[in-house]
């Protein structure tokens, strides 16, 4: 039985929006190598919308698929809408993730939110509902990262 859903495999094998944006309006980085997964998100904002989103990810299949999915979900959204994307909704959109991958690898939305916050801070604006999750915040007892 395969570990990952078809949708995860599709995003892993053909990740969307891999790369960097040289003149990005915001950059967000999450993860650490002990954890295993590191993600950097780059955003380009135009008229209050995410015109472009790119990412670079060091990590497992789930981490790469999550990053790709987040980028796809975020492009074209207003910053307010993008702030509402959660790690949970990304996992859902991917048809679920293995239980042990829900914490470490499912950080794409967090990385995106960090990039949006970076942009908002530079512009001195406030985004409704934007929360920048601390990586230590995951509510599990048996934390490995």
């Amino acid at each position, binding site marked *: 039985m395969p570990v990952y859903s078809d949708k995860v495999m599709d995003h*892993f*094998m053909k*990740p969307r929006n*891999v790369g*960097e944006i040289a003149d990005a309006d915001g950059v967000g*980085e999450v993860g650490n*190598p*002990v*954890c*295993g*997964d*590191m*993600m*950097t998100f780059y955003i380009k904002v135009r008229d209050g919308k995410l015109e472009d989103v790119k990412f*670079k*990810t*060091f*990590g*497992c*299949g*789930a*981490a*790469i698929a999550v990053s790709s999915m987040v980028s796809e979900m975020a492009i074209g959204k207003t910053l307010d809408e993008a702030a509402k994307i959660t790690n949970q909704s990304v996992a859902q959109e991917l048809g679920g993730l293995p239980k*042990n991958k829900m914490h*470490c*690898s499912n950080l794409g939305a967090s990385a995106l939110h960090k990039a949006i916050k970076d942009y908002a801070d530079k512009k001195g604006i406030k985004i409704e509902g934007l929360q920048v999750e601390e990586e230590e915040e995951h509510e599990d007892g048996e934390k*490995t*990262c």
Partner: protein
Amino acid sequence: MTGRVYLDYAATTPVLPEVLQAMLPYFSEVYGNPLLIHEWGDRVRQAIEEARAKTATLIGAARPEEIIFTSSGTESNNMAVKGIALGRQDKGKHIIVSDIEHFSVLHSARTLQKAGFEVTTVPVDKNGVVSPDDVARSLRKDTVLVSVMHANGEVGTVQPIKEIAGKVKEAGAIFHTDAVASVGILPVNVAELGVDALSMAANQFYGPKGAGALWVRRGVRLLPLMDGGVQEDGRRPGTENVPAIVGMGKAAEIARKEMAERAAKFTTLRDRLIQGVLSKVPYTILTGHPTQRLPNHASFCIEFIEGEAMLMLLSSQGVAVSSGSACTSRALKASHVLIAMGLSHEIAQGSLMCTVGLGTSEADIDYVVETLPPIITRLREMSPLWAKHLKQGKGE
């Protein structure tokens, strides 16, 4: 998918056709309970004793009755570590294990610790080698057991067991070695090694899963893990897994006969793989000892990428290998072996373990050496760590 290359023989080997043939009668034709004194029992008892003799011969044990059949290498290790320590606790409650033991040894030691034993762990150097002097320094008057593995399944390093055993003997402690990764692959002789107990598993040398053995020198007291009847001299009660035991014996017989031939084949393939990977993939290190390693074992850490993603891409190309990366393990922890060897978590993430076997050809190796580099390039182009590395490189 263009290939089907299995380079994960350390995870398990297939059962040889001759081994399977030897096993088959013992399911439905020759099915008696070996405990019983009638023809049905006699025939099966004889088959078990033949398998015991063949298994003993493979490891140079003079007395077949010193072989205890178990269900796996894990059970053998549990039985050795817990059984010997508990059997000798009137003499002391201190045991020594190395940092890179299999979890069946490490976790057995932890269980003993909870039961009041003191456990000393000895480190390894950057090649994964345990120093006999470190073991000697850790030995105490109340040390009852030392367990250091013969060869490591993750990095292939073969330990100086004879030297370590010598130090342990001088101190009067019992020495166990987990030889699961080496028996059937390397010549193993318990008399030459000077050990008191040795674990092995049939599925590492083309025998069936569900068959293992512990060899224990006569006179070493061993407390059984399970209580029950008199099977295996009461040390491992429960009706015997007869087909598996017969299969283990057959596999042991063939392994002994073909040992030199296999080792020569494996070494050639291994070296071709190591040379190919190191020359084709920059920023890659060989893990484990460069020469004191299992003939079938090639292991690496590939920088700036993560192992699970690499395994998945290799699998999509028909190649089966392993990794000790945190993301590959269910517990999401990096291989304790790589960390004990002083590698950073970041480097350990790029772990790649390949083991060749009887079914491996040079064409298989060449296919992997050809398939791997574009996969690594692809993952590195996606990796923020690689991007940082390139930027730093340019900045200098």
